[in-house]
């Protein structure tokens, strides 16, 4: 199976603008999750990873008129701009754009100073494509919390089908009142920063962020090691539209089918980037699925303690971070982890560690019973 290379990338988050700034913040064990007291849905306040629009606007100034774009559009444009800047292969006539988002500009439902069509996800994507004068119509993947990784697979398939030579995959979602109140109505929001896989976990913390990565079938650019996206598989739990399967069926099936299709085994995995939202049921479900997949010994983390759950962005951000883990031979601690609170053994990464890394598994799960497993591999180049 021909892989696709994950080349330039960018993360725009409360931890910083640009992947480098984000990696540095993670190395310093910083978290985007801060206490906020500005929502009528949380009388006692809540923790979330939010970006001040002023900060986005000051970054956006050099690119365009901040007044013409929504907060989320500006975040995604900032990410895409960084990715394009260093990509010689970028060509506005042939490069594709695949966007991952769950809710897009949903905050406009409350107060819309833009045209109503900005609420459509395809319209938001078109605004971003137009900003960069892209000729190809953008594609939107909206498949709950696996969207970010599914967008990478979509891009890889569309390159394989000959539709594009290369693709920018971008993602973005806001921690809007809409999703905050919704997760709260599910009684799923933690009253302290989330603690994935921990005994004392109390639920999710939400975050907002955007990210982008340049995908190409050719290994181009500077020398040095490159990370290949090898393959990904999705599987549905067929169990419940919001509650994860008690047996981890969908996640287990996505992992086992992926390994079988690529002739790899659990023992080949040097790192596992889990979904780890810190709800009781999700983390337990993942632990069961990983155990069934023989992954108990593989070093694993959840990045949610750093960012919160960034919905349509999370799986793309975590894939980018996994890429850099592989490149830099660096395992990042699962932030806020205390002691194991799941029924199966997991090898949770407790502190940042240097280790030779070659292959990683990334998983994600979401509402609608969807699950995804993805393989990333390092290709060495002298």
């Amino acid at each position, binding site marked *: 199976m021909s892989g696709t290379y994950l080349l330039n990338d960018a993360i725009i988050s409360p931890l910083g603008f640009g992947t480098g700034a984000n990696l540095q913040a993670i190395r310093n064990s910083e978290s985007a999750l801060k206490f906020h007291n500005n929502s009528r849905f949380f009388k006692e306040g809540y923790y979330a990873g939010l970006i001040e629009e002023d900060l986005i606007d000051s970054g956006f100034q050099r690119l365009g008129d901040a007044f013409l774009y929504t907060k989320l559009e500006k975040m995604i444009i900032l990410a895409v701009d960084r990715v394009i800047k260093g990509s010689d292969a970028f060509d506005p006539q042939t490069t594709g754009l695949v966007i991952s988002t769950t809710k897009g500009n949903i905050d406009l439902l409350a107060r819309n100073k833009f045209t109503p069509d900005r609420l459509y996800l395809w319209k938001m994507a078109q605004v971003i494509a137009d900003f960069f004068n892209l000729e190809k119509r953008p594609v939107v993947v909206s498949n709950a919390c696996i969207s970010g990784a599914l967008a990478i697979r979509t891009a890889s398939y569309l390159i394989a089908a000959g539709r594009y030579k290369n693709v920018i995959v971008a993602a973005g979602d806001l921690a809007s009142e809409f999703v905050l109140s919704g997760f709260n*109505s*599910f*009684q799923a929001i933690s009253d302290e920063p989330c603690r994935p896989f921990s005994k004392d976990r109390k639920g999710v913390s939400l975050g907002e962020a955007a990210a982008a990565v340049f995908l190409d079938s050719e290994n181009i650019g500077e020398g040095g090691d490159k990370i290949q996206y090898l393959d990904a598989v999705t599987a549905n739990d067929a169990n*419940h*539209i*919001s*509650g994860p399967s008690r047996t981890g069926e969908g996640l287990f099936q996505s992992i086992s089918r992926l390994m079988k299709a690529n002739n790899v085994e659990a023992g080949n995995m040097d790192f596992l980037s889990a979904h780890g939202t810190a709800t009781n049921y999700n983390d337990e479900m993942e632990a069961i699925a990983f155990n069934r997949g023989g992954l108990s010994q593989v070093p694993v983390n959840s990045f949610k303690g750093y960012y919160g759950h960034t919905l349509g962005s999370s799986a793309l951000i975590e894939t980018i971070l996994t890429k850099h883990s592989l490149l830099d031979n660096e395992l990042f601690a699962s932030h806020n982890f205390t002691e194991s609170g799941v029924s199966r053994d997991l090898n949770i990464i407790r502190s940042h560690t240097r280790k030779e890394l070659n292959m990683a598994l990334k998983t994600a799960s979401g509402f609608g019973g969807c699950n995804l497993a993805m393989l990333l591999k390092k290709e060495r180049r002298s």
Partner: protein
Amino acid sequence: MSDLHTELKKSIIEQLNLEDMEVSDIENDEHLFGDGLGLDSIDALELIVLLEKDYGIKLTDPNQGKEIFNSINTMAAFIEKNRTR
């Protein structure tokens, strides 16, 4: 059967979109979840909203729900005791 029992059955059928059911189909002591009426976790969350909206009761601990939402009888008893409207 008290008015509250009937009222609860009506609002459960309406709020939880049990369109194929009528008030007379729900027994007072029937389990609402599992093998009884077959409600699920989202229904439980919606019942928590119903308690707050119609009776001014805010459940602080979601685990409380298990006992309260056992049947129409247990729900009615809990509401009688705790209602603020």
